[in-house]
């Protein structure tokens, strides 16, 4: 039982991480109907920038408590990512707004490769170790272990989702976003500056990506230039599972996907008598993607989306 619980906790934290990234995908999709494949790369850049700042701070020998250093790293990474998100939209997506969807999709993938290679040139190709700055005191809980950082990540993902929900459904800006999402032309005629709204969406999503990047690197203790790729795919799967375009769906999809992966990796070996092993972990994510696309393309919570596109 404690093993089951431990796998559940592992899955929950993993899922919260997917959810943090999936929120970024889903926000952009909700408004533009575009899958921003460069989002995973923004997460990676966030982690790398934060890492550089943190390494500088650590090397300079200023004695600061760990969480403060991590927070400073994050503070440096956020504006960079926000600028990057704005830049990506401005350079790669805005000129193609009227173009067929496939064109925008291909630029998104191109952007992703571009960012990955730029990061490879700047930060090198090796794995960087991310110092353990955040407290990770383990707590025993019904026979399973959970640490402060894990609790924090889950709470953070939930908070991010709530703030975004509030932003979209309760604020003036959110109303503009929803209007743009429904019909950009009419929203424009009604006095909504859709360019600004879309830019803000990207900027908010990218700030969130910076947070996700720092949390992920702190959790796994490593950062590298291609960490965004697989993460992006998994988060995309999570967003589709929950219903892409739906914020609560991204959260739900992320958590479910994390738990499916964790339990899958944990039990497949025993269930198949050792025929399939735990290295099939990634298979589960994509199996879920295929099943959802076949049986419920609009995802668990998504309804509107199907008719939109």
């Amino acid at each position, binding site marked *: 039982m404690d*093993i089951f619980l*431990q*796998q559940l906790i*592992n*899955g929950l*934290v*993993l899922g919260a991480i997917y959810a943090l990234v999936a929120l970024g995908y889903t926000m952009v999709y909700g408004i533009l109907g575009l*899958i921003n494949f460069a989002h995973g790369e923004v997460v990676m850049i966030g982690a790398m920038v934060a890492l550089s700042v943190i390494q500088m701070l650590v090397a300079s020998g200023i004695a600061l408590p760990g969480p403060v250093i991590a927070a400073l790293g994050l503070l440096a990474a956020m504006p960079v990512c926000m600028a990057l998100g704005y830049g990506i939209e401005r350079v790669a997506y805005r000129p193609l707004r009227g173009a067929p*969807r*496939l064109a925008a*999709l*291909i630029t998104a*993938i*191109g952007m*992703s*490769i571009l960012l990955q290679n730029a990061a*490879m040139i700047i930060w*090198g*190709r*090796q*794995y960087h*170790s991310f*110092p*353990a700055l955040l407290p*990770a005191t*383990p707590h025993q809980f019904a026979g399973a*272990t959970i*640490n402060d950082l894990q609790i924090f990540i889950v709470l953070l993902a939930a908070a991010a989702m709530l703030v975004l929900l509030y932003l979209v459904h309760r604020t003036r800006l959110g109303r503009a976003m929803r209007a743009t999402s429904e019909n950009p032309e009419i929203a424009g005629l009604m006095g909504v500056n859709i360019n600004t709204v879309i830019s803000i969406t990207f900027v908010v999503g990218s700030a969130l990506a910076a947070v996700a990047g720092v949390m992920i690197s702190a959790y*796994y*203790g*490593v950062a*590298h230039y*291609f*960490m965004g790729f*697989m993460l992006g795919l998994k988060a995309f799967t999570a967003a*589709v599972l929950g219903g*892409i375009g739906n914020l609560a769906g991204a959260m739900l999809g992320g958590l479910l996907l994390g738990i499916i*992966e*964790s339990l899958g*990796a*944990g039990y497949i*070996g025993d269930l198949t008598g*050792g025929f399939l*092993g*735990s*290295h099939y*972990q*990634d298979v589960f994510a994509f199996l879920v993607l295929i099943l959802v*696309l076949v049986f419920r*393309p*609009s995802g668990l919570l998504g309804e509107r*989306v*199907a008719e939109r*596109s």
Partner: protein
Amino acid sequence: MVRRHLLSVGMGLVAAAFLAACGREAPPPPPASKAEAPKPPPEIVVKLGSVAPLTGPQAHLGKDNDNGARLAVAEINARGLMIGGAKAKFELLSEDDQADPKTGTIVAQKLVDARVAGVIGHLNSGTTIPASKIYNDAGIPQISPSATNPKYTEQGYKGAFRVMANDVQQGKVLGEYAVARLGARKIAIIDDRTAYGQGLADEFEKAAKASGANIVGREYTSDKATDFRAILTNVKARKPDLVFYGGMDAQAGPMVAQMKTLAVKAKFLAGDGAQSPEFIKLAGPAAEGVVASSPGLPLDKMPGGKGFTERYTAKYGQIQIYAPFAYDAAVTLVEAMQKANSTEPAKYLPELARISRQGVTGPIAFDGKGDLRNGPITLYVVKSGKWDALETVGGEAAAPAAAPAAQKK
């Protein structure tokens, strides 16, 4: 509609991956010999291939190998060498196989097409084995500095050599050490499902079982993973007193760190893929007390270790693991050419097969299969943030006929 849209997403991804795969082209080699001052000896350009993962999680190791070979070529060129009455100028063509077997065969073909005289590489067993067929078909000799899977030299290829002990030997040393010296009774094994990781883990399992230990769990990951919590939770449930990992440092580092956060109390043991300074960086404080083996002598005990370290670090910085072996591989190839007085693969291959020379890493001579004769294996432990040599098994004796463990299968 969404479905179709997402389908096109998938196809776009495949297309992108394909484009990325064929995007890299080496710049064309510079024009061979320019017309020079009156009547110097004719100059020939001899191309050597060097293959290792230069991108991806093992890029630091790949660069290490590549630099080792590069240093050798630079030194040989600086000395100036006459082969077959011509002044030989060696040129190193570096290729990136991304530690991926598929890419490995593509770049191997590329080197064959570029008419290299010999190949130093590849780094991983998983890429070396499929690539070795291509080199063999083209008759090009190949020395791998670091591929330790026994299969590589068991295919019966005449031109396939390696300059370090293989995993049958290494797995045996590790398995016996785990039981006899670390007192392990219940052992959990994790591997990364590559030819190297899986092969080493299998050999380790055999040896540990033969020594009387119980294998309580076998888990798997990939050579690109960073999250090991799910499998470590399973491992923890089986209460092992030792965890063995067959794989590379990029996974071993975070794995050890995550073991600590999950309060897995078992000792950690690994093979040469994890025995790098990078591992200690990635694992952080959790690295303390980790034991790993590596074929070859400790760097400071290698006959040419001190000089090599000085020359290498002056040019390229810290040595990871295999740079001295890549250096030896390159020098060995050239020395065989020199002995045969030819850069023709068919002519110098027999010389290579019966070469006996003192390399930086120790005496270099090959057995009938192409394995290094009497390759020693050293065990290391992490002590206050550095790898400390514990003991060396085998080697030294240099009795040519012995090679005891090599045939054991």
